[in-house]
């Protein structure tokens, strides 16, 4: 390459660099996103299709109805850590979010979630029923972990949790959740003899629960820590049965010969909540109230996100082919064990550490 053309190459590169790199650097902060309407509320969610559904079926109709314009941010799996980080930095950036139950109760105990005003709480209980409402929010986007068997590899599938934990009768390889300690431990509680209806209110006997977990550990070939992985290991044949999310199981069922058992499953709710010290707290409370009192919007969301909602009218308006797969449908819900999140929020560190040892330890 001659000297002059080399020089031209260098200057072309420099121009490209300036256009591509430095101009955004001047004003961009990385956290801001240009929206055509200036959003007020920031809602943190799981991203992907669920996040899209929330934006289109809940946030936009809320804005159209006179509420504050809102936008979604994606924080899959890291909501607890990010809120804690924002708190540590002294600057809460989010207004609302829909964390999983264990994270929600823990955040509330640490004072990071806002307590619902009394009148809002009363309205929520009126619309959704008292058991769907907590001091800080209502259940939304609820999942369930249920027993799923690959019937090409097995003749009989465990009918309930006691059978899932019976490794003599069912020696096949299993997949078991690595995440959500309290949900997993709840199944162990039932295996240890606690009646299903009482798990939500009984304190966890940690030693007896882990005694049960240690029984199945030799047969747990994979501890899944993402929905995708739980699907992959069933599909690839790495495991013959699994305790996995219902939505994933039904996706798999379209291309695999599976048996799906709700009996012995565990309820895995998420909660729509407002953050304490949220920049726009009142608007966020309004959002919660609106969602809870608009079953049609909830139904649209459930259809788009393939996830369960709390409002009975919403469930009633959905086709049976969908509600058969949802955790809040009465026929399904009454077979599930509900975790004791209150107890968990008081014993988070101990249970997390113990479960981590169970999964990762020898």
């Amino acid at each position, binding site marked *: 390459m001659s000297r002059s053309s080399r020089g031209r190459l260098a200057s072309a590169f420099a121009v490209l660099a300036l256009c591509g790199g430095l101009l955004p650097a001047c004003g961009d902060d990385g956290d801001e996103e240009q929206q055509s309407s200036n959003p007020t509320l920031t809602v943190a969610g799981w991203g992907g299709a669920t996040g899209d559904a929330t934006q289109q079926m809940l946030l936009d109709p809320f804005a159209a109805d006179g509420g504050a314009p809102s936008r979604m941010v994606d924080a899959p799996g890291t909501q607890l850590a990010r809120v804690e980080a924002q708190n540590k*930095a002294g600057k809460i950036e989010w207004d609302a979010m829909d964390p999983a139950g264990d994270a929600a109760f823990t955040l509330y105990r640490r004072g990071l979630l806002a307590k619902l005003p009394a009148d809002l709480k009363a309205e929520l209980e009126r619309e959704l029923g008292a058991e769907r409402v907590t001091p800080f929010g209502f259940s939304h986007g609820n999942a369930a972990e249920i027993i799923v068997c690959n019937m090409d590899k097995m003749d009989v599938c465990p009918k309930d949790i006691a059978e899932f934990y019976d490794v003599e009768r069912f020696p096949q390889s299993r997949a078991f959740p690595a995440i959500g300690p309290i949900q997993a431990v709840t199944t162990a509680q039932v295996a240890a003899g606690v009646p299903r209806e009482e798990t939500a209110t009984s304190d966890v006997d940690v030693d007896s629960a882990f005694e049960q977990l240690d029984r199945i550990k030799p047969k747990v070939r994979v501890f899944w820590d993402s929905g995708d992985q739980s699907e992959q290991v069933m599909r690839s044949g790495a495991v013959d049965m699994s305790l996995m999310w219902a939505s994933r199981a039904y996706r798999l069922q379209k291309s695999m010969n599976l048996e799906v058992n709700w009996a012995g499953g565990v309820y895995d709710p998420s909660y729509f909540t407002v953050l304490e010290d949220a920049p726009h707290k009142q608007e966020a409370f309004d959002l919660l109230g609106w969602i809870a009192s608009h079953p049609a919007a909830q139904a649209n969301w459930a259809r788009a996100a393939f996830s369960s909602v709390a409002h009975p009218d919403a469930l009633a308006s959905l086709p049976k082919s969908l509600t058969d797969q949802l955790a809040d449908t009465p026929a399904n819900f009454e077979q599930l064990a509900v975790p004791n999140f209150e107890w968990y929020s008081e014993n988070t560190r101990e249970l997390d550490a113990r479960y981590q040892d169970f999964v990762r330890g020898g």
Partner: protein
Amino acid sequence: MSDRLVHVLGIVVAALVVTILLAPVLLTAVLSLSSDSYFTFPPDSWGLRQYREVLGDARWASAVSYSFELAVPVALLSVAIAVPTAFAIGRSRLPGRHAIYAGGLAGIVVPISAFAIALYGVFAELGLHGTYVGLVLANTVLAVPVVLIVVTAAMARVPVELELAAMAAGASRRRAWLGITTRLLLPSIVAGGVLAFVTSFDEVVLIVFLGGVDQTTLPKAILDSARFGVSPVITAVSTLLMLGTSAVAIAAVGLARRRR
């Protein structure tokens, strides 16, 4: 006879290893042409569905764009820091310069997850967590060693005679020498910058620990999709990413190794 045996054996093993090294690349490219909505091998159906989906989805486009927004300043900054350092190390007798060179390589040598946590604590305290500036600085630490190695090596290969001639002939001796050497080094500097760009473009661990929610680079988007997402379009995304960075990197390495 044993000589030939070793020779033949060596070739067989080398060929095997080359195949193994390229296998994952080929597999990803092949699977990107599957139209299934889940992973099986061999694919049940073929087609360009994945590519159509990727190119039509704004989320991937914004991930690519953010990757560029980070990688370009990182490359420029790394070059601006590493080239002067290379001059100081290669053309001076500064005491401690070798220690400085070793320090400059820290970005490669320090275990990256530990380094991410170290930055996590400092960033949280200084409010740099989730900021553009923070990510640029962190990535620069990783990219500087790359430029430093390339340019230092090239500097050692510059013929002495050219530099001495420049110094003897130029009106201002030192400046003439600097001009000549820099011009001779230009291909390596550009190559180093490009390699720094690729290093930053591909980087993911720092983003996971230090990035805010809106800061999604392409590798982070792929990782999130692999762990939390559902659609297998990431084989198409991965193939495009591989082709892009390989082409750029190989060109850069070719540029750096050019003999006159």
